[in-house]
């Protein structure tokens, strides 16, 4: 079974969300997702300043076999993107919860974080 840190929040579409406790969250894809995708070769990031709706397709991760959409887990504004991924998309494979983070967003509603899946919920989803 892949690694699912218990302190993070998750979505059914395999994004993880970390609360930075300053009104912003960091978003990435789970270990399980990077395993399914295989070697990543390219990441298309959202623009900083872009207002996202919850569940809006906002980024694309491309592996040798597929190009997949990344969905905004919650509504909010993109405040930073991981520029290292431009040259090193493989960081997502090697360190999905650390150096392989995708972008940070300022949530429109900080309480909306509660609507996301817990690690246990996600583990159950990913098992199916």
């Amino acid at each position: 079974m892949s690694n699912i840190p218990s302190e993070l929040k998750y979505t059914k579409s395999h994004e993880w969300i970390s609360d930075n406790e300053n009104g912003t969250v960091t978003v990435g894809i789970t270990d399980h997702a990077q395993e399914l995708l295989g070697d990543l070769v390219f990441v298309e990031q959202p623009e900083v300043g872009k207002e996202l709706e919850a569940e809006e397709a906002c980024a694309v991760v491309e592996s040798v076999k597929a190009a997949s959409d990344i969905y905004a887990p919650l509504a909010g504004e993109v405040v930073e993107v991981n520029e290292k991924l431009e040259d090193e998309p493989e960081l997502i494979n090697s360190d999905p919860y650390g150096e392989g983070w995708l972008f940070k967003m300022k949530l429109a509603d900080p309480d909306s974080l509660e609507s996301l899946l817990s690690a246990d919920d996600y583990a159950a989803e990913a098992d199916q």
Partner: protein
Amino acid sequence: MPFIPHTPEEIEQMLATIGADDIETLFDEIPANIRCQSLDGIPPAASEMEIAREVQAMADRDAGALNFIGAGAYEHHIPAAVWQLTTRGEFYTAYTPYQAEASQGTLQLIYEYQTMMTGLTGMDVSNASLYDGASALGEAILMAVRVHRKSKSRKILVPASLHPNYRKAAETIVKHQGIELVELPIDPQTGRIDPTALEQYSGEDITALAIPQPNFYGVLEEADELTAWAEQNNTLVIGVVNPFALGLLKPPGEWGENGADVVCGDGQPLGAPLSSGGPYYGILCCKQAHVRQMPGRIVGRAVDADGKKGFVLTLQAREQHIRRSKATSNICTNQGLVVTASTIHMALLGPVGLRNAAALSMANTRKLVEKAAAIGIAPRFSGEYFHEVALQLGQPAAGVLERMAANNVLGGYDLGQVNPSMADSILVCATETKTDADIDRFIDTLQAAL
């Protein structure tokens, strides 16, 4: 049940199986108002012999005439070896193969084609080709919009000097995608993009500027200055080129400071006969930085598990068979056979041969212009031209061309067809296929028709 036959009994059986009364009911879900009721003007079925005779009569109307019409499709000498080789069984398919990597020869040919195209255009990457030049422009515009995400206007400056059919096809492809094509007027003196008209857009958010080279009127645009303007204005540059002319002209990859971003054009002048308008093929090249937004197929060179050299389809993750409705394009195939001919044609000519043919075409058209001056006919525009030129006749061009055609000389393209204010002008092209005697015959026939 066999797959192909369609005997009445089998049709009955199939309808009974799916529970339909007749074949008509299978189309019920298509609303009646959008269905084609009957085909007007289509004659009754004819036998093969009757059709062969009718089509031959049509073909005969084209044969034997001395042709000076260009306007987007150009007559060039095609060595006999080109189509002799192209129609060999190993090559004779219109498509890139479905089991692509099993067809190493075809992939290698496409790889060579891409290499030649990047050489000609001075760009980093070429795809395996598109349908034709006009649809390639549509794809180039869609690509520019995807690449230039910071530009929110989705406005594309398209000069009036760009081929009218290209403008129409591109408009059809992009108009329902929130993209606006803004017409940039030409200077009526030079026949080039009017620099003062372009200046009005300085500081405005413009996604891309299309630069035709040479333009529809045969005139050479000031590609360096236009590209420099675009670079200053944070606007992408789409070069729309005649690849044959690139044997001689500065490649778009070297325009301005950083070169064009996307280059498209029609490959017909490189090995495809005129054949009443097609099939031709489309060229699409771009900078390395834009490659992930490029539609269509790209062949790359790789090594296999044993370290042996081989060719593969690369960057497929954004194509339809993987990305479905979110693919970069609805392009699913290319003009493989015409590209094969083109690649063989270019290989036979080589860079020097292509350059010589381009220089000869340019010289022939200049000879024609000089001789036209002697009978009082001058170019309509003052701008420098490549191998095609607009001549002002001082009377309705349509009648003159008709009288020339009666003498088996196709004297040019009636510019009144695209712009009523130019109804007294024709577009004329004398490629390397024309001899001095041909040009003299053109002048004599023109003089008699005036």
